[in-house]
């Protein structure tokens, strides 16, 4: 082997190792979370997923509870149903608001906006995607929560109380509605970016044929562009869902971080898995049996699996709904966040 080809082999192997770090990290996260969850998985069993009480127990008691060979503090209960419901409810509420708005923005940016305004408006939407989540949290805390408490919640409660979950007292403003609003603002840029790409991919000849038939711009959008871009739009919504399920800081600052309490209406405080991991780790560290830390690891594992399934579903959803798309093309639609940088 001459020096040239051995140098090339070395380069090839080094770069392959660097690329496989992706696989290494994903595998390590899965294995480590599973190993650290194991005591909690055995100790709590299925009660972990359907239990409503989260209580790390009496840390000062001399008695400890032993079950299936693992020890926890006296009176400890680890059930995350409340946080599961909170995670799904905040994400669902956010997507209900964000999906139609994102679609509107994507259509406006590609079809309606005057050409000179398209690029600056796109930049603004991309900048929104760059705002750190803790700053969204700060804004939610300073602006959205007071507005919900003083105006939006009383208005919805008194005029739309007949809609399920809309009746009830406005409370402090920290809760499901504020969390959904802030999350919606955070996922709009993601759904918009992917839908915009999908809309821009509509073959111009199809659009021209539509216009030649004498249709209005709206009819072209409704009958040609949206059916054509359906796959990308749905995929964008699923990716937005993945982001909303895992959001931590903004939720932590506006949700009220409810424990052991299922929200009865959209104004009640909620707790999500992601936010509870942050808010509970401080006290979990003081549990000398370690079970509280293991239980939080199981929570992280549950969140990891949920977001993994959702993100892996995105290309499948695109393929099934798109018809014309191959899985490869569908996967590439998920590249929008990376391509934005490259363009």
């Amino acid at each position, binding site marked *: 082997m001459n020096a040239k080809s051995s140098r090339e082999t070395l*380069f090839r192997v080094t770069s392959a190792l660097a*690329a496989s770090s992706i696989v290494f990290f994903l595998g390590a996260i899965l294995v480590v979370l599973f190993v650290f969850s194991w005591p909690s998985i055995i100790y709590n069993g299925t009660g972990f997923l359907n239990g409503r009480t989260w209580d790390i127990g009496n840390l000062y008691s001399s008695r400890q509870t032993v079950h299936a060979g693992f020890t926890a503090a006296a009176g400890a209960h680890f059930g995350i149903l409340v946080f599961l419901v909170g995670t799904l409810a905040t994400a669902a509420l956010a997507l209900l608001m964000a999906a139609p708005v994102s679609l509107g923005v994507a259509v406006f940016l590609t079809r309606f906006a005057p050409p000179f305004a398209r690029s600056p408006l796109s930049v603004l939407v991309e900048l929104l995607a760059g705002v750190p989540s803790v700053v*969204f949290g700060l*804004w939610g805390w300073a602006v959205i929560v007071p507005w919900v408490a003083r105006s939006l919640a009383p208005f919805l409660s008194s005029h739309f109380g007949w809609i399920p979950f809309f009746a009830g007292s406005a409370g402090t403003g920290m809760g499901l509605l504020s969390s959904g609003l802030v999350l919606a603002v955070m996922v709009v840029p993601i759904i918009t970016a992917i839908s915009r790409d999908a809309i821009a991919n509509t073959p111009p000849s199809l659009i021209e044929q539509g216009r030649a038939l004498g249709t209005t711009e709206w009819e072209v959008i409704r009958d040609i562009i949206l059916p054509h871009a359906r796959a990308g739009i749905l995929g964008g919504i699923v990716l937005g869902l993945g982001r909303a399920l895992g959001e931590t800081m903004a939720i932590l600052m506006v949700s009220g971080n409810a424990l052991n309490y299922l929200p009865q209406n959209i104004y009640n405080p909620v707790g999500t898995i992601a936010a509870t991991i942050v808010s509970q780790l401080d006290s979990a560290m003081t549990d000398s049996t370690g079970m509280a830390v293991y239980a939080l690891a199981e929570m992280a594992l549950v969140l990891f699996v949920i977001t993994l399934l959702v993100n892996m579903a995105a*290309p499948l959803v695109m393929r099934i709904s798109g018809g014309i798309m191959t899985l490869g093309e569908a996967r590439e639609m998920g590249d929008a966040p990376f391509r934005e940088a490259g363009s």
Partner: protein
Amino acid sequence: MIEGERLTADTGETGRTLHHPSPLFPRTTLIRRVAAALAMALALLATVITIYPLLNILYLVLRQGIPALSGALFTRNTVGGDMGTTNAGLSNAITGSLLIVAVSLVLAAPLGILGGIYLSEFAPPRIAASLRYLANVLSGVPSIVLGYFGYVVMVVWFGWGFSLLAAAITLTIIMLPYILRATELAMEKVPATLREGSLALGADRSATVLRVVLKAATPGVLTGLILAISLAMGETAPLIYTAGWSDYLPTLQAVHSPVGYLTYVIWTFINEPFAAAHALAYAAALFLIAFILILNVGLRTLVERKSVRS
């Protein structure tokens, strides 16, 4: 796939239209024009509701942050800031944030760029497709999950305690997929003629990749790096239980020494009942937003200049 029926349903009508004054084509009836105008109004409204929060966030951070600015922010630490002491500053948090991001960039940049080179130049198509997909999946893992992973592995298991290294490695996992994919996408765009020219001149594969293709892809790679930096700078959840928090300047020890950072100030000090603590939180948010805006604007001018020249 295209619903032709709806498009042609009323072609039987004849008459003048505004846009197409041919009798062959349907009349643009009032109701259709109203529907078109309504659709445009709704799309415009959606755009306004999306841009407004951005402007509102900027307004909030500027209005509350600018009065909090002073030279002392750079020279004093946060000591006592959470107790409402007015002579506290942010120097430990600013230094800490820059230090954590710098170390994670040193770790993530070579991994990401080399990985991107592999995907674009060497990997067999099926392996490249799988790695690409897994990189997208990794970028979708919630940052708190990565933070907890960093906590149990490095802080607890390795016994590093809250430390610079634990924080930087956690952020590396967040930055990696962005740098890797941006590098790959940028290298893919380099025309094959450049590669062929270099090979024809007798350069071997690795020299071609490094000296020709990577060079041509530099703007795209830089874009990925800058995107990753601004992402890492704004992270909080992965740092809370890896970096910990310190009221003092970073010690430069890799392990066993917690580090303060800007985003921590925002979410904890805003919950203190003191105006001085709130001022520090808003000042931290202002620094963060300014840093990210400057990176973004710098990035766009850089990319535009490069693409104009080439």
